[in-house]
Each structure stands twice: as C-alpha cells, then as structure tokens.
C-alpha cells in the first residue's frame, strides 16, 4: 500500500523495486523504465550521437510534485504500491533514467496508472535535460507529443476498474 519516491544520482535496480512491490501479493505489476538512447532526436536535425545527458532538478519541489502526481493516480485507479525513481546528474547512453512501477489487483489499473504517471512526470515534474553531443551542450525542449500524451488524461474519468482478472 505504500509509495516510494526517490530522486537520486545513483543507479537503481529493477529487481529490487519489483521485489518490494511483490510483498503485498498483488495480481499484477507493471514497470516502466526509461533509458538514455544513443540517438539524439532532441538536439539538432542531423542527430549527432549523444555523449552524455545531464539531468537537473529542483530539489524539494520535485519530490513534492511527484507525490502530488502519485496522489492523483491513486485517486483515479485502485492500485496497491507505487514506486517512482528518477536519476539526476550526468548519464551516458544506455543508462537508466527513470523507473515507474505499480502493483494492483488487476492489470488494467496497473497499466493505466503507470502510463499516467509517466505522462504527468514528463510534463509536470521539475526536471530539465541537457544533451552533450559532439562537444556541444544544449537544453532539451519539451515535446509537443508529451503535452498531448498528458492532456488525454484530463478529459477522461478514472478508468481501469473494469474487473479484468489480473
């Protein structure tokens, strides 16, 4: 029934977080992991290869906003455990950036809550990404697609509890 939110420089371990959610004996666990891609879509047309990514955040406010996003997810879906881990600092291609994991009795709630958490995290939580590619640093712009992904939850009522088995 608990929520774990952590912003950290250190890497995280999927199995550890999954095992923690398993303790409550849920029927379903969904995990989402975001990783640094080697492909630099965000930087410039022509796509220089990403050397590193630097993640900045607003300490204190970030954790508060993440807690609000998790609260909102818990109001919309009947979920059991929620874990949100986000790394800051300098990351290399292939590195893990973010983990959202949700346990629930039924699969639909777990899927929707995880997807919702990622959409809101990307558009509301105070993280900023800087790409270092080919010796040039540049701040990443927010994607219109992420705004669109987040806005689809605004029209909809709480979904999910259609009683599917897991």
């Amino acid at each position: 029934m608990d929520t774990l939110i952590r912003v950290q420089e250190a890497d995280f371990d999927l199995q550890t977080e999954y095992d923690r959610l398993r303790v409550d004996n849920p029927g379903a666990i969904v995990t989402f992991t975001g990783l640094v891609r080697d492909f630099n879509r965000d930087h410039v047309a022509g796509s220089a290869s990403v050397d590193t990514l630097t993640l900045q955040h607003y300490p204190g406010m970030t954790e508060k906003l993440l807690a609000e996003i998790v609260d909102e997810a818990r109001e919309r879906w009947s979920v059991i455990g929620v874990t949100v881990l986000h790394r800051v600092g300098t990351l290399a291609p292939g590195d893990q950036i973010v983990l959202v994991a949700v346990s629930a009795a039924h699969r639909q709630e777990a899927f929707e809550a995880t997807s919702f958490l990622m959409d809101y995290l990307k558009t509301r939580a105070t993280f900023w990404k800087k790409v270092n590619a080919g010796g040039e640093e540049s701040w990443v712009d927010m994607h219109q697609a992420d705004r669109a992904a987040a806005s689809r939850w605004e029209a909809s009522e709480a979904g999910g509890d259609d009683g599917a088995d897991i």
Partner: protein
Amino acid sequence: MIKVLFFGRLGDIAGAEERKVSVPEQVRTVDDLRQLLGEDGEALAKALNEPQVMVAVNQDLVEWDHVFEDEDEVAFLPPVTGG
C-alpha cells in the same frame, strides 16, 4: 533580500543558477521581479518572458501577480523535460 533560482536554459542565460537579490519597494509581484531581472540584459528579459516559463515561490507554483515577501525563494522554471 530574496533568493532567485533559474533552472534549465534560464540558468545559462542568467549566468548563474542562484542569485541573492535585494529588491526596491515598488517591486512587489513576481512579474515585477521578472521585469527587474530583465533589466540585466535583453536575452534574459526575453527568456523570462517566454509564455511557457512558470514561476514558483517557496516551491509552490504561483500566478504572475503573486506578491512575494522578503526571504522568499523565487524560482523561474522553463518547460520541464524529465523522464
């Protein structure tokens, strides 16, 4: 004396992520503060006035007409790009 924070590209443009600022009495709202900070240079003025920039006082998002107080922490936030 207030603490002003600039995040993301705003920090690069402001030349610092954090500044201590003492403000004249007529500077009351965060919008007033934005205009004051913009007097430092056109690039910062332009960047702070981008429509998607948001402002937080003591880690709460506020509207531009919010009146800050002495010792407050005022943060200027460009669109977020985590995840």
